[in-house]
């Protein structure tokens, strides 16, 4: 044994911060700016009557005429200060795990202040707003779950948009011709078929996953538009499905606020919540989930453990397609109840962003979907309130939110390790 270097103590860290610390600082400044904005524009900038009335019940409710009356100016002052406080707290870079929560709370408060400001001097149905949020998030959540099912086994699905669109079309046509059940099955089958196509192209022919997804979007858009132009315009009875009615859950639907927002919906909405729970349990507590995740993280390890990687990928991507089919059915049979060319309008991609935002977790997908639903609900309600912002800018909102989300507002996320990588055996 020869000389040994003397021990060095862990040195003082210079001002080069870790990514999480930097993010905390950025979020801090964003929150301070947001708080200041609320304080100045929604608080000081509010003219005239500052009383906002939030209706907390619908006319159809058992308990009517619940309302929350609030002074929008005062609320904005309080909220503005609170948000700035959150920002200052982030600037201290303590409790880094709380950055996202601070951000979420900050934006929720901002939304509240915004609504109060917009509704100042008039009335606004808060319950209607939350109800819209839930409904508008359904397709996003189904899209996110589709993406999650595929990416958990290592296949990126850019074709969610096309899967939604094609199954909406199939659902509408079959439902118009043969009834709701046929429409629903047709939508599920179409989703499954396009899921299979994605798996087949990427696994059997080793087509780049993103290109295969783009192909599915093209095919769906082209075929549905073509058939819509050639068939539906001619035989209009094929574009008139019976709207699937809401199914009011007895007693639960009578609870104030919660009843109207959660328990008076079509079965698609209940299905969404059930599916989220089911996929969560499935992924993390069952054999199916363990095997699926192993294929998405380390397919070769799965293979050497005797798991058929290709079969698992086929199965999950097809199941994912069926989830998209369910989402498409909701779009075509319940939400809109007819087919329109390109009726998805990018919502599949928003679903994909929700999946990333939700960190590849089912409950994350639900949460992210609700955020997007909220953004769209705000856009719709704000358009009604006529607050002077051009509607085009409100329409942009969900897309801008998506960009901000994928630009890493949630910090560094960790996709499944083998995501997007073909598994090639000799």
């Amino acid at each position, binding site marked *: *044994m*020869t000389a040994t270097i003397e021990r060095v103590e862990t040195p003082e860290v210079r001002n080069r911060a870790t*990514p999480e610390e930097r993010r905390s600082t950025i979020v801090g400044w964003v929150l301070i700016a947001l708080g200041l904005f609320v304080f100045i524009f929604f608080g000081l900038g509010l003219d005239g009557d500052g009383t906002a009335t939030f209706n907390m019940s619908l006319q159809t409710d058992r308990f009517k005429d619940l309302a929350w009356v609030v002074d929008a100016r005062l609320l904005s002052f309080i909220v503005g200060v609170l948000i700035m406080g959150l920002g200052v707290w982030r600037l201290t870079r303590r409790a880094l795990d709380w950055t996202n929560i601070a951000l979420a709370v900050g934006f929720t408060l901002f939304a509240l202040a915004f609504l109060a400001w917009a509704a100042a001097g008039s009335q606004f149905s808060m319950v209607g707003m939350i109800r819209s949020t839930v409904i508008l998030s359904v397709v996003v959540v189904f899209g996110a779950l589709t993406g999650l099912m595929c990416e958990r086994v290592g296949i990126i699905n850019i074709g969610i948009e096309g899967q939604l669109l094609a199954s909406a079309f199939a659902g509408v046509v079959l439902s118009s011709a043969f009834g709701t059940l046929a429409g629903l099955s047709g939508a599920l089958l179409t989703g499954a078929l396009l899921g299979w196509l994605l798996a087949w192209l990427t696994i059997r022919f080793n087509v780049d996953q993103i290109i295969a997804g783009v192909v599915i979007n093209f095919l769906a858009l082209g075929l549905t538009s073509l058939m819509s132009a050639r068939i539906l315009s001619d035989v209009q009875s094929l574009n008139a499905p019976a709207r699937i009615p809401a199914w009011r859950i007895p007693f639960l639907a009578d609870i104030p606020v919660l009843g109207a927002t959660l328990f008076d919906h079509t079965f698609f909405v209940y299905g969404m919540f059930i599916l989220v729970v089911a996929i969560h349990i499935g992924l993390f507590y069952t*054999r199916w989930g*363990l095997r699926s995740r192993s294929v998405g*993280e380390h397919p070769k*390890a799965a293979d*050497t453990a005797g798991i*058929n990687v290709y079969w698992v990928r086929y199965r999950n991507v097809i199941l994912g397609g069926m989830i998209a089919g369910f989402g498409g059915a909701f779009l075509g049979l319940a939400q809109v109840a007819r087919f329109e060319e390109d009726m998805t309008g990018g919502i599949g991609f928003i679903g994909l962003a929700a999946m990333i935002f939700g960190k590849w977790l089912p409950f994350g997908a639900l949460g992210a979907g609700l955020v997007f639903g909220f953004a769209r609900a705000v856009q719709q309600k704000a358009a009604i309130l006529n607050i002077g912002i051009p509607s085009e800018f409100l329409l942009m909102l969900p897309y801008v939110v998506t960009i901000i989300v994928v630009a890493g507002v949630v910090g560094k996320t960790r996709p499944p390790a083998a995501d997007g990588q073909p598994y090639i055996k000799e």
Partner: protein
Amino acid sequence: MALELRGITKRFPTVVANDNVSLSVAPGEIVALLGENGAGKTTLMNVLFGLYSPDEGQVVIDGDHLELSNPSASIAAGVGMVHQHFMLVPVFTVAENVILGLEPVKGLSLIDRTKARRLVTDISDRYRLAVDPDALIEDLPVGVQQRVEIVKVLARDARYIVFDEPTAVLTPQEVEEFFEIVRGLKDDGKGVIFISHKLNEALEIADRIVVLRDGKAVGEVNPADTSKEQLAELMVGRPVLLTVEKSDAEPGDVVLSVENLVVLDDRAHRTVNGASFEVRSGEIVGIAGVQGNGQTELVESIVGMRPSLAGRVVIAGHDVTEHSPRQIHESGIAHVPEDRQESGLVLDFTVAENMVLDSYYDEPYSRGLRMDWATATEAAQRLVDEYDVKTTRVDVPVSTLSGGNQQKVIVAREFDRDVKLVIGSQPTRGVDVGSIEYIHARIVEQRDMGAAVLVISSELDEVMALADRILVIYQGRIVGEFDPKSVSSTEVGLAMLGSGEG
């Protein structure tokens, strides 16, 4: 009763990886499959394990022909394999990895975690493997991960176990422990195939040694009747130097100085945590350490690919801590990166394009924005000749070259200019003996021309042979310094485990 591979032939588009290879192992026997990198060892075992399908030949286990379609058939027949690159899911626990594919379930196919845990502890206790069923794989050191692989194999009731280069990532002490485990398996009646390119280890552990060269089985020897030199010749086809020939170092001025460096890895762990050392011109400093103790991040940080959290890197008197990779490169660094296929080469680029990959932007290869491909091609041709790169032309994709020749392309590119500091990360990983000798000689040559050389290798033998001074890295710090001429690999190995200090 035996596992037999009969006349296995496996062809790839450009090469025959296995040419009529036969091999057998009986229960309670340890057979070493010896061969240098590229000899076809891993291919043969992947055939046995059903990952590749052979073009000819068959696998017979205890008299039964094995349909070689996929790993499950091999597993069912009692074959287990501990791969060189562990087949473990990093984000799963030990128990989850072990039960993958044979999950105990209860009720509605929910995984029975109690049973899973018990399975792991039972096997772990019986063979004294000491693994914690609830630990996350990514948090475990490689030595423990290897034991998890063994548990995995045993949980599948394997009777024949293949170890593919199992000692590559272990310290000498760990190798001894590992051999104890293997002997225990042998006593338990398991047939063991031990794949290696290390002569000493094959001689120590095996009952029988089969040598593979260029895809053919070229000999079978009894360890008692052979010598290291004989084996080496059989393995390479010619006598080989087992040491690096070099004169004593004459260290000059400090060229590289690393001071209290702290670097985060991708998971935000402080993988390099206060490392300090110096490298002088005219000396080769080798960094030894168990894989995953911060070597990768240390090098990435020195060459500017990874920001450091604290500390300084000084090259030839200039603080380059905040400099870009190009600035650092221009200060006279030749860097042979750890993963040549990922970081060293653009595989789909031609040899010529790769030769100018970090010098294309300046005279003589370009003027302004315009590339001068004629000059670049000429230079590439000169380098190919000078550095003995075996390729048909310089305008073929570099991916068509063998590993050793790919590495020589990088060495040629990096060494062909005024070099003050050479950094070689795993400079000879996965290349053939001829290329290893060649690259070692070139590194020594750089030293003799006055460059400071830093070599990082997980192969302790390489560090011992090449370095003038050995530094041991453990948990992101330099914990020991040794003179390779007066220290045994056991002592260095102890330091690598963090217990060898003063």
